[in-house]
């Protein structure tokens, strides 16, 4: 194989396999199988339908993939608005710098009984972690080689288990800071047992040419509820590859919201599998891009059982020569009657050079279902701008007002009220800074 980036990953693995966490147990064997599989497939490229708009192979061939250094010594977290957006809300904080857990910067005091939170290395001896890592997803098979890469190289991550019926009293904040250029591979494991509840806020920030590969495995037990809000504000040199795989048992509920305000090349994948009836998944997001930023949201919702509800709404604003992608698929299996599945994506182009590719898909094999999908790409209405200006609102302010109004519909879907307000403020300030 002549792929530069894939070779680099394989070399990194060979060099680090004895020191990666879990080197003496089941994970070592799992890693070996994963790197073998990855060696066979290599990195995805644009000739694969799912990667048509984001040629990961090409992007990574040009990237600095040397493992980012483990940060030692004192490091002060940035004070930027994005870095601090959730500081007043997240009671428990896990900080990762270059993908490595920083106990000194984290805050875990008074973590409630019945909930366990730790870094990846500390959880590998537990059966639940093994189960969740070894889980293979049919509906996520497109992501399998990306997950294999992560499985082989994952070095750290946040692992949260909430016992049956326990409700995490305050949000958990996971802060990922890219402080140096280079690659990191993070694996987060989230298990909410039956009737357990939690809110997880996630922030990705950095001013460097990092490559962050993050896989988050989520398992929700019956009646469990997870609210997830992710904020991404990374440098325009950063490459971000995140994959969430969530399995939802009966009557559980997942609400996941992603706001992207800064990235270089970003691919965010969400795979949701309904494994029990009456569950609900809301996977939504907003983004504002400029320059040459590239953001690809890829979202597959698998209705494998009857009576589940899934809603997806992504709205974005693209300026400069930025490019957005939305690829989504709702699969309704033959037995999944009474499914309610909706998938919408809307984009507003603020510049002639910006581009949007949208491909929402429905694959329905059951007949008693309610499904809808749709996509729009447009620009600001000149008539609306004239109307606002005719009331004395300067053009820039009129445009800002209309753009914020456009994004507001989806920002409202962020599940945690405090986080929602924080995101709205960030978006509003983003437009002030962008001078729109």
């Amino acid at each position, binding site marked *: 194989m002549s792929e530069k980036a894939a070779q680099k990953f394989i070399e990194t693995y060979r060099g680090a396999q004895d020191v990666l966490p879990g080197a003496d147990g089941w994970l070592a064997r799992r890693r070996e199988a994963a790197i073998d599989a990855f060696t066979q497939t290599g990195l995805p490229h644009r000739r694969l339908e799912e990667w048509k708009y984001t040629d990961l192979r090409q992007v990574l061939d040009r990237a600095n993939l040397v493992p980012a250094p483990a940060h030692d010594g004192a490091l002060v977290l940035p004070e930027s608005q994005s870095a601090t957006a959730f500081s007043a809300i997240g009671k428990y904080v896990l900080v990762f710098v270059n993908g490595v857990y920083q106990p000194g910067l984290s805050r875990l005091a008074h973590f409630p009984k019945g909930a366990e939170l730790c870094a990846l290395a500390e959880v590998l001896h537990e059966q639940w972690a093994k189960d969740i890592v070894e889980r293979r997803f049919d509906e996520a098979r497109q992501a399998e080689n990306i997950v294999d890469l992560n499985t082989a190289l994952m070095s750290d991550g946040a692992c949260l288990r909430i016992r049956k019926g326990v409700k995490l009293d305050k949000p958990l904040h996971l802060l990922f800071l890219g402080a140096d250029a280079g690659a990191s591979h993070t694996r987060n494991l989230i298990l909410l047992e039956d009737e357990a509840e939690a809110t997880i806020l996630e922030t990705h920030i950095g001013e460097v040419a990092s490559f962050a590969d993050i896989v988050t495995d989520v398992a929700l037990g019956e009646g469990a509820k997870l609210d997830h809000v992710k904020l991404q504000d990374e440098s325009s040199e950063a490459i971000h590859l995140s994959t969430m795989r969530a399995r939802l048992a009966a009557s559980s509920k997942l609400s996941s919201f992603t706001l992207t305000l800064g990235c270089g090349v970003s691919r965010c994948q969400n795979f949701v599998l309904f494994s029990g009836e009456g569950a609900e998944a809301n996977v939504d997001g907003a983004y504002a891009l400029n320059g040459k930023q590239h953001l690809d949201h890829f979202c597959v919702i698998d209705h494998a059982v009857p009576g589940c509800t899934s809603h997806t709404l992504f709205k974005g604003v693209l300026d400069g020569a930025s490019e957005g992608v939305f690829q989504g698929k709702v699969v309704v299996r033959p037995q999944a009657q009474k499914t309610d599945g909706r998938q919408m994506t809307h984009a507003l182009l603020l510049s002639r050079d910006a581009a949007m590719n949208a491909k929402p898909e429905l694959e329905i094999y059951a007949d008693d279902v309610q499904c809808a999908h749709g996509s729009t790409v447009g620009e600001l*209405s*000149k*008539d*609306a701008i*004239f*109307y*606002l*200006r*005719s*009331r*004395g*609102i*300067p*053009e820039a*302010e*009129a445009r800002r*007002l*209309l753009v*914020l*109004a*456009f994004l*507001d*519909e989806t920002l409202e879907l962020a599940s945690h009220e405090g986080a929602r307000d924080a995101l709205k403020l960030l978006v509003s300030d983003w437009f002030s800074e962008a001078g729109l």
Partner: protein
Amino acid sequence: MSMLEIKNLHVTVDGKEILKGINLDIGAGEVHAIMGPNGSGKSTLSYVLAGRDGYEVTEGSVRFKGKDLLDMSVDERAAAGVFLAFQYPLEIPGVTTMNFLKTALNAQRKARGEEELDAVRFLKLVREKAKPLNVTDDMLKRALNVGYSGGEKKRAEVLQMSLLEPALAVLDETDSGLDIDALKTVAEGVNALRSPERAMVVITHYQRLLDYIVPDVVHVLSSGRIVKTGGKELAHELEKSGYAGYGADAA
């Protein structure tokens, strides 16, 4: 003093001449009605005054309070005191009427070098202005004009005018789409704004509106020219005889 002085105004839209030499002089405190058949150029005149794109002035001048109005941008005109009540007010999803009103008022105050109103003072003011127009708190909380009835949209326009207190208000077919009760409410709102410092241009196809907003002067616009000017009785004549006598090419 002359509030609005239009001299020999020629305007083309998409290369077609719509206004062919308008002359108009409106003093402070006066209400002028401009009547005319469809296609005579009434709405074009209102959009040119507001500064809409796509309306090219090829000849003539417009002076507002002695200043060159055509030299000002859309929002500068508004801040200087020009207000156009739209025939079809636009729906703006996602922007609440309240937020819109506050943004507009404070943008104008800022442009004029006045202090911006804080939330409390603004709320008090807007409630005071909204009440006589029967604009409810619920309407103010909803997205601007979204899901408003025809009457609600026109009442919202008059509320904007009342709040922004323009020196020159141009009402473009404010009567269209209104039943008689809604028309009365809107007309009362407009009449309450008549003042010696304010001039108004009421554009309408029908005389009906002028029974409620009684003009000082009536102009008949036909094929892009003012073909007759008279007192308020002219409106009644038109109601009887129609526009047939004013330019054969009027539809």
